[in-house]
């Protein structure tokens, strides 16, 4: 009954917004626009739970029933001229309800009962999602407010693109990177120097997300939720610690971009961000039951990097490259982070290592008229690699291998390949796509999908299939295979 009331309230609210939007969009001011999207998504497991995944959910069960509404308001306050700046604002409200914990499998309903606050926090929210003011005059541009900012050239996995925290609680790698980005309060600006020597459009950009009022961090999926990492049962409480509210914990940085010799699109960046996946520490704490707790503390990290892209005329493709050096990244060495597991009843500490990550990618569009004679096939290939400097052979990933329970090895050199290919039919309203992630150590993730637009409706059907070694990257979630149907109404 409660669920029904909630649904009716949501539907009524959304209907009111739509009606109001249609009236208001045509009133007062040609620049004022109200628009948005209402989305419902259903995901059904297509594999039985295995290993340490708990609670067990058999295939055929609902694992996600996510409803999202994004309501956007934009207006132009002033248009650029010799005497007036370009001034506009943008606001997005986001309303989320995942009903799987209210009417999904019994196991997930029970999970909610054991961890109501954390689950409700994850599955129900209404937030001011984005809210910023744009100011532009001449070579200057500023964007002040709650926003997203993305550096670099990569898709699917991040190299330089680590400014905004990511919400991996509702799908992780299954979801588009941009859908997982959490906007943060930031002031950002850039200055266009124009042509300087061989560099066209030389631009300096800086940003500051001040830490003195607390920081938004990547949320941690509560244990047992459909997209949390598998873990054996444990009575050790998990404690999350946000960064201290100090300026030193700000996210901030700068980059320089430009086009060299009318060919190479280059950027150099350095910034401080907050690590999305903090390394755990086992703490001896007499105030908790069992005297032991697992602490995750979000810390800052310095990143230096560069990216470059150019058009290669012989193969008629765009080559993208990116490299970044991560200074003092927290890592997990169980003997140091969790000495209590080895009989030393002392609080652990977090070791740090430098990590070098890079990507080489290729974007190519080509005709394959047997398949499609009106639109090109798009192909995006990427090779990711990472290398831990001053590698310690004891380094692990804090996920337990089944059935031994030992932590999964963190290799010194790691690599992945990604491929995304798509095309369009029916005047751009039908888009089939295939995404593949391959870890050469023995794991695959395949995501075939098809999207169809019947404006204003958009439907998308996706399938997530993992194969390979359970202890290798995407293989860790091997038992989370699912099919997802998503319906969106845009206005």
């Amino acid at each position, binding site marked *: 009954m409660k669920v029904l009331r909630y649904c009716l309230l949501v539907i009524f609210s959304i209907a009111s917004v739509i009606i109001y939007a249609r009236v208001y969009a045509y009133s007062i001011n040609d620049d004022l626009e109200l628009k948005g999207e209402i989305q419902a998504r259903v995901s059904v497991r297509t594999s039985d739970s295995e290993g340490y995944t708990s609670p067990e959910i058999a295939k055929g069960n609902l694992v996600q029933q996510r409803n999202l509404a994004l309501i956007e308001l934009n207006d132009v306050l002033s248009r650029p001229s010799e005497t007036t700046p370009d001034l506009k604002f943008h606001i997005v409200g986001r309303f989320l309800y995942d009903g799987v914990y209210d009417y999904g499998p019994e196991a997930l309903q029970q999970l909610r009962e054991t961890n109501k606050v954390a689950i409700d926090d994850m599955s129900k929210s209404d937030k001011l999602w984005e809210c910023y003011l744009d100011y532009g005059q001449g070579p200057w541009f500023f964007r002040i407010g709650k926003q997203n900012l993305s550096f670099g050239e990569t898709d699917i996995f991040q190299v330089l693109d680590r400014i905004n925290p990511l919400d991996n609680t509702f799908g992780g790698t299954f979801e588009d990177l941009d859908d997982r980005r959490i906007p943060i309060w930031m002031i950002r600006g850039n200055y266009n120097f124009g*042509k300087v020597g061989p560099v*066209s459009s030389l631009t300096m950009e800086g940003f500051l997300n001040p830490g003195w009022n607390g920081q938004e961090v990547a949320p941690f999926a509560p244990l047992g939720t459909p997209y949390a990492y598998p873990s054996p049962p444990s009575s050790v409480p998990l404690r999350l610690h946000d960064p201290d509210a100090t300026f030193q914990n700000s996210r901030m940085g700068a980059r320089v971009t430009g086009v060299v010799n009318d060919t190479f699109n280059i950027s150099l960046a350095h910034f401080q961000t907050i690590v999305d996946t903090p390394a755990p520490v086992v703490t001896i704490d007499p105030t908790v039951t069992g005297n032991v707790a697992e602490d995750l503390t979000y810390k800052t990290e310095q990143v230096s990097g560069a990216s470059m892209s150019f*058009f290669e005329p012989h193969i008629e493709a*765009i080559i993208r490259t990116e490299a970044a050096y991560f200074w003092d990244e927290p890592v997990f060495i169980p003997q140091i982070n969790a000495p209590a597991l080895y009989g030393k009843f002392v609080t652990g500490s977090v070791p740090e290592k430098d990590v070098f990550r890079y990507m080489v990618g290729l974007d190519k*569009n080509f005709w394959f008229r047997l398949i499609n004679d*009106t639109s090109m096939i798009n192909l995006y290939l990427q090779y990711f690699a990472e290398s831990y400097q001053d590698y310690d052979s004891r380094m692990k990933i804090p996920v337990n291998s089944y059935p031994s329970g030992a932590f999964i090895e963190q290799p010194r050199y790691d690599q992945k390949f990604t491929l995304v290919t798509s095309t369009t039919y*029916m005047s751009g309203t039908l888009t089939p796509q295939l995404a593949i992630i391959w870890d050469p150590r023995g794991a695959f993730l395949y995501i075939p999908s098809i999207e169809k637009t019947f404006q204003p409706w958009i439907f998308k059907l996706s399938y997530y299939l993992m194969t390979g070694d359970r202890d290798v990257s995407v293989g860790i979630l091997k038992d989370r295979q699912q099919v997802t149907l998503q319906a969106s109404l845009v206005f």
Partner: protein
Amino acid sequence: MKNYRHFKTIFMIILMLIIYASSAPAAETQSVNKDNWQVLKGIMPDSALKWVETGEMVVKYGKLDYDPGKVQPSWVLESMKENIGKYKLTSKKAIVEASTGKSPKFIKGIPFPGVKITDPDGPDKIMWNTLYIRDVNGPLKTKMDVKFIGRKTGYERSIYADWYSKPFDGYEPAKAWSNPDNLEAENQIVVTSPYDMAGTAMMTWRYRTEKNDMLFGYVPAIRRVRQMTPAGRSDALFGSDFARDDGAYGGYDGAIDNFKWKFIGEGEVIGGFIGSQPVRVNQNKNGEWVFDYKNKDLLVWSYEKKGQPGYSAAPWHVDSLIWTKRPVWIIEGIPKDTYYNYGRQIIYVDKETNVAYWKIIYDRTGKYWKTLWFGWGMGQDETKTVNWISMPLQIIVDERSKHATVQLSHMDYKCGTNIDSNQFSLGGFTALCK
């Protein structure tokens, strides 16, 4: 008495003639449909003539109240004398000064007036003229409505976008602008609706020299400006029936050297115009010249008049266009890229205004595939001294899928605007995006 009667008769006849002349409609047009389609034989491409013959299209054919050749910006008319023989083409079809062989610092109006049919570079020069006739209107801002229309389904949907362009050639005031990158022009298209596409944007830097265009895209899904390949010009634009190259005032917006161009004739063809008189342009408080397209009678769609007698049966026609005979060059273009999705193309370019009226597109096997045509709006202010050329309407029909896409850009069409070059920098482009 008899003389008086004769005088009276003659006087009455003269009086009647005067009354008739003063009350006659400004533009005399006749409706050409499936009953009298032969009127247009020889002055309309065959693919379009067939539409008239079958009732798909009804044409309002006649004369305009004015000569479009004279309603052009003053610097264009001046360039038709000043630029004769001033420029030539390199082997890669780039424009250089005839006297020095160097890339010119600035080209006023159109670069190649007075082209002769015997000129081996003639067709390439005319295609350059069609690119420059867009530039001569200066920085342009407009809002586009890209309509998708099916033969059976009628109007299906629209994609709305903002268009910004800034030329560094053609437009006389551009001579004083700084152009350190030696660009011919730069442009941006930013999708504003529907919601799932809003924010998608493309920016092009086109160089004066033989360099490839620099093309950047902003895709909301990745929140980043990414360099895009300048190849793929024959790919569908936003899934429409238009290819990326099917733009500009000449029906072709790619590199001139990407095609082999050839004269296949000259003659007369009917071209579509909005209104029988020049469209009024007014200068706003920012000094921008705004086309007044508020009169809804200027653009009457056949899909809005579905089933009504006297209107085109095919839903994508604009039945209010006035079609008039114009002198044209007939140019054939064959792509050099063997993977280009089109084959042969025939373009009809006005000899006096350098705009195109029709483009007939064949596929790679030589079979007829699409027809593209334009509705032109020649703008003039109330003093009749300031002239502009607008391209508010472009329609392409895919005969195989019985589907059309219309690019309508009459809403808020502004020429001679002030657009800060910073908008076309990488930083400025990012600022346009979410």
